[in-house]
């Protein structure tokens, strides 16, 4: 019997096709806007998370807890001693691709005439390249440790801003100065083997990278700042973090997103934009559908009176109109979902480039992720909005006095 009422709702919806089409189109556009925006935001989150992981943080980082709580008086004061044994333990976990040490240090780099302050990162070149090769764009020269005839050479790769400031070119020798772990000023000559771009202008004028051995000699310490853990899948971050917490007592384990403050800020901002967009679409769809239903109810006032006179209950009248809202919502959402799929495919194939985001120097391809949850969420959201927007007009219709409704012209 309910299918009969559903059929009636469908027939009523198609009664004024032009009006139904206009309302449906508003809902379809709402659907597409939400799905494309959601898919693009998901893509942006994915891109940003991968950039954060590959470019800087890895999936997990292991620290001495004091290094997170206190300010160091000397470099590597709260660094990790004997990192290799920890790396072996970490490497035994199934989901771990590899682990590596890093040293973060600061100092001055000079060409003899001019000195600039730098932020340095000492790395295991082979492993580091597996991680950051994705995000670090080498402009000239090569990565650290690639010259097989100069494995013992103290090399440096400079961000392009540092190189420009020091007028440094490949093959030049520069002097790096910093304080050792005992507070003594130390300096050593390093050979420029590569100039790269980080994609972030602020980083490009300060950043450089050397081998771990170079930094350890310079700092006069065997310690490292932290251990970077790289996993096979980003999704296993939480699981491995829990396992590491069990295996490495006395160490602090930080997940990449806990360290990536910029990523968190962007997620927060994008989520707020998406919510705002959702609210706008909700209001537009609500008004459009309400208006359609109100006009439909107004035109059918006499019919409502007739149905109630022949025994249709108020609840049934309400249900009939809600069903009409549901039918419009169902048809429009399904069309919206389908068109979103097609449009996402077209956009992803088109190779359109987006301009560089704030704080970056390189653009990125416009891409929309297919996210099942967004499709399902939008579908349910649209259905609920359609039903909700029908609620007030339908309620008014069900409360009409039969005699007044029958007398409506």
């Amino acid at each position, binding site marked *: 019997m309910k299918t009969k009422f559903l059929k009636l709702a469908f027939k009523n919806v198609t009664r004024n096709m032009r009006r139904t089409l206009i309302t449906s189109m508003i809902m379809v556009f709402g659907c597409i806007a939400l799905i494309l925006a959601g898919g693009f935001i998901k893509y942006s989150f994915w891109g940003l998370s991968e950039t954060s992981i590959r470019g800087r943080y890895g999936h997990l980082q292991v620290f001495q807890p004091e290094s997170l709580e206190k300010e160091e008086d000397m470099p590597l004061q709260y660094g990790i001693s004997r990192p290799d044994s920890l790396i072996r333990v970490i490497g035994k976990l199934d989901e771990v691709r590899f682990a590596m040490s890093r040293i973060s240090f600061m100092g001055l780099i000079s060409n003899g005439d001019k000195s600039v302050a730098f932020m340095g990162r000492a790395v295991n070149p082979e492993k580091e390249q597996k991680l950051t090769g994705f995000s670090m764009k080498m402009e000239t020269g090569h990565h650290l440790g690639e010259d097989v005839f100069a494995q013992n050479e103290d090399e440096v790769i400079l961000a392009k801003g540092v190189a420009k400031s020091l007028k440094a070119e490949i093959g030049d020798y520069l002097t790096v100065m910093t304080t050792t772990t005992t507070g003594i000023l130390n300096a050593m000559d390093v050979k420029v083997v590569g100039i790269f771009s980080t994609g972030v202008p602020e980083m490009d004028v300060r950043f450089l990278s050397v081998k771990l051995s170079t930094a350890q000699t310079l700092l006069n310490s065997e310690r490292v700042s932290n251990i970077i853990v790289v996993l096979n899948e980003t999704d296993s971050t939480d699981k491995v973090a829990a396992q590491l917490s069990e295996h490495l007592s006395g160490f602090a384990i930080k997940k990449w997103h806990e360290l990536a403050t910029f990523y968190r800020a962007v997620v927060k901002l994008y989520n707020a934009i998406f919510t705002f967009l959702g609210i706008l679409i909700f209001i537009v769809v609500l008004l459009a559908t309400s208006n359609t239903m109100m006009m439909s109810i107004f035109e059918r006032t006499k019919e409502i009176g*007739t149905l109630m*006179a022949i025994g249709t209950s108020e609840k049934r009248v309400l249900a009939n109109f809600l069903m009409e809202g549901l039918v419009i919502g169902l048809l429009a959402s399904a069309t919206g979902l389908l068109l979103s799929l097609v449009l996402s495919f077209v956009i992803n194939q088109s190779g359109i480039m987006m301009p560089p985001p704030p704080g970056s120097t390189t653009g990125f391809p416009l891409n929309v992720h297919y996210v099942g949850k967004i499709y399902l969420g939008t579908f349910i959201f649209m259905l609920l909005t359609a039903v909700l927007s029908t609620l007030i007009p339908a309620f008014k219709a069900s409360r009409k006095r039969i005699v007044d409704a*029958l007398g409506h012209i």
Partner: protein
Amino acid sequence: MKKRLEFENICKTYSLGEVLIPALRDVNLSIAEGEFVAISGPSGSGKTTLLNLIGLIDKPTSGTIRFEENIISYNGSSKLHRLRQARIGFIFQSFNLIPVLNAFENVEYPLLLTTVSAQQRKKRVEEMLDEVGLLSLRAHKPRELSGGQRQRVAIARALVHQPKIVLADEPSANLDTQTAQDILQLMEKLNREENVSFIFSTHDPQIVKIAKRVVNIRDGRISN
């Protein structure tokens, strides 16, 4: 004969702003099982108001209405819609068919509000369409039917759920003379065969002649 409906001192007053307009004054009326009653009177005499009260779609200002010897209470609408759905059939002056439904579906609609099975519904609807001579036009939408045919569909819809009373507000007003006669004769035949009380309003003296009982109403009072 068993009493279907009784009106005791029924008054109905409409208010137009601060002006009170009495539509029915102290009406006493009794309708028995199987009666074929015409409510006659000029325009504005209160015929439609009286029919609305009989059909339980309006509420009297004062007085008591008994339906099958039970006093009607207007406090809860659910009881009233069940009474209308089970016991009363309506035929409207302008047919009031649902335009998106075909003849079969229009007649079927009152049965959708009951627990009658699909098979029984189909059987009953076909019987009624056959009765009014429209079985062959079952798939036609109201716009594809003539005025007389539409009114026949409306009659079938009013009778499909086997009500005790059928109310018709000027059922012949929108029809030509011959079709009006045919419709009234059909109603009279169904009244006889189905033992349903028919109450219809009209101001057409030719139509009044067909009725077995005539209730004359003038200025809101029953004059006979």
